[in-house]
């Protein structure tokens, strides 16, 4: 085994143990009166990258810590590779974990940090040194092997933490907001790098974040957590285009909650008929969630007023580069946000009358 390691790349070595499937079944955990996990169930396929997204306090960390064995559960079962590990202690679970707080061992160099898991497994000094250096190379820190944590920047520390978690060739990698202490640029860079490494290594990964851009950008599937349960899990595009609950529709991306009326599976809204998504309310008055980019805005000449689609007034226009967001006050509705190209927005100014229409894409609606 040792002979062919020498000339293989770090990732070839790591790929020897592909990820395992993870199943969370009905996890419950209460802290006093707070129900941190309230029947959370989740299936993650082997080698899949799943992001867990949710507002602060929804139980993301609790779920991850339960999976790592760092916290106990009131009830529920955890299966990895089909085996029930619910009662296994954390040091026998063989999961790699990267924490939100910097967690490198301060008295060890970067290389010793990475090698620590191997040291625990009785790997010889030379082998584990070489492995540690391979992993540091994988995360782009080969030149920092003998630096101590306090000599590394926050981003570098989290890279070393990632290398340390991967060094023991875990079947599952757990990341609890590993990027939240970093600045925006380093965040984006490191998140793409995590994805690259994950694809190389093929490890099953659970990535907890409350930053939806982060979740949507890197994950195979995104699970939205709310009050200790899984609201919906879907591919990023589906989650955005086809939300299954009002919470997901509002939480992921921007949405305009608009009042309309549903009749036999169709929604009448501002003069347009829209298809309704599965799970929506199909009859009666509803609140529909419409994306800003589905709202079209046309300036109206003064003499034209009074025909067709309702007339609104522009409240404000804000520039976002190539796109603009326009806030519009409609009769009988809350202010609506529209996202339109910059060229179109140039014709609008606060107070100008506009005709608002909705593109006929499927929307989610809840009973009003």
């Amino acid at each position, binding site marked *: 085994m040792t002979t062919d390691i020498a000339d293989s790349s770090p990732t070839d070595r790591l790929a020897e143990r592909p990820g395992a499937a993870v199943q969370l079944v009905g996890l419950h955990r209460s802290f006093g009166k707070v129900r941190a996990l309230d029947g959370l169930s989740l299936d993650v396929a082997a080698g899949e990258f799943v992001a867990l997204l949710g507002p602060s306090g929804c139980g993301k960390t609790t779920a991850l810590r339960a999976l*790592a*064995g760092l916290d106990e559960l009131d009830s529920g079962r955890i299966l990895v590779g089909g085996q029930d590990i619910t009662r296994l202690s*954390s*040091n026998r679970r063989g999961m790699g*974990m990267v924490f939100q707080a910097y967690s490198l061992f*301060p008295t060890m160099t970067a290389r010793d940090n990475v090698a620590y898991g191997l040291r*625990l497994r009785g790997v010889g000094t030379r082998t584990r040194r070489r492995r540690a250096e391979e992993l540091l190379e994988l995360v782009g820190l080969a*030149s920092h092997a003998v630096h101590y944590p306090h000599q590394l920047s926050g981003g570098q520390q989290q890279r070393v933490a990632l290398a340390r978690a991967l060094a023991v060739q875990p079947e599952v990698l757990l990341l609890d907001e590993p990027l939240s202490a970093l600045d925006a640029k380093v965040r984006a860079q490191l998140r793409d790098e995590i994805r690259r490494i994950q694809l190389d290594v093929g490890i099953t990964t659970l990535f907890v974040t409350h930053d939806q851009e982060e979740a949507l950008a890197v994950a195979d599937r995104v699970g939205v957590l709310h009050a200790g349960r899984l609201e919906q899990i879907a591919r990023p595009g589906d989650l955005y285009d086809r939300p299954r609950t009002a919470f997901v529709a509002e939480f992921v991306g921007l949405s305009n909650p608009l009042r309309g009326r549903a009749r036999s599976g169709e929604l009448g809204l501002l003069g347009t008929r829209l298809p309704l998504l599965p799970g929506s309310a199909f009859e009666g008055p509803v609140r529909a969630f419409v994306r800003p980019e589905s709202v079209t805005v046309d300036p109206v000449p003064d003499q034209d007023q009074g025909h067709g689609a309702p007339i609104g007034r522009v409240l404000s226009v804000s520039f976002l580069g190539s796109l603009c967001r326009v806030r519009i006050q409609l009769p009988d509705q809350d202010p609506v946000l529209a996202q339109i190209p910059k060229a179109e927005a140039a014709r609008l100014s606060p107070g100008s009358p506009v005709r608002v229409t909705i593109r006929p894409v499927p929307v989610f609606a809840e009973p009003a």
Partner: protein
Amino acid sequence: MAAVNTSVPDGRTRPPRPSARSRRARPSPVSALRWAVLIVIGGYLLLPLLAMAEFSTRGTATGRSLDAWREIGSNADLLGAITMSLELSALTVVATLILLVPTMTWVHLRVPRMRRLVEFACLLPLTIPAIVLVVGIGPIYLWVNYLLGDSPLTLTFVYVILVLPYAHRAIDGGLGSADIVTLAEAARSLGASWPRVLVNIVLPNIRGAVISASIISVALVLGEFTVASLLNFDTLQVVINLLGKRDAAVSVAVSAAALLFAFVLLYALAQVASRRPGTVAADATEEGPTP
């Protein structure tokens, strides 16, 4: 990396602060006060030492003599007591650390709600006067002496209790200063058993606290008189006291020597404590250009 590179030239080119310049012109009231405090406290501490030196070197008729100091080396009782007190302090340190470090680490990591209780238990000895303590444990020591012999080393048990409040404070500070909980969890998830976590992760990170707990324990044991005397054990302080009744000069010489010795010992321990891994390498690497 970038942060390091840019901050260094920044620091160098910054003009000297106005306050630094004015301080050179005339001493500020703050530094005058600082010196005054230093001199007063220094005098307060040094004067008795000088007096001890003077008294213990008084000759019989004319001039100075070191007879009293020579006596230290030739008095068998005294040498025995010195060895005994050193052995006692070593034993006390070891026993205290073995008792406290794993317990406090466990409480810190696993049952944080017990912290107050442990703290309370450890602080109790402070509130009990030595005489009460001795009256209380007298009967127990009858048994201890019956079972373990009547060596003064059995004093270790009382001394561990006397040292508890101070050692607890020191170690508690150490556990609180680093994020031991997260570090331990990281080690656990990498596969470390609890003993491994204690030895590989917790101990290196609270090294300074453990050493200061040891320093305090050594100092306390070397200077303890009441309990040893009341329980009739011949420790250093007890023998010094006895000597004082026979030959005051020798007694004072021993006291001065004990003080000096304790000072040197504590200084050495403090030196060990301040040598942290990584600091040397830090200075070396930050000098060089970072790629």
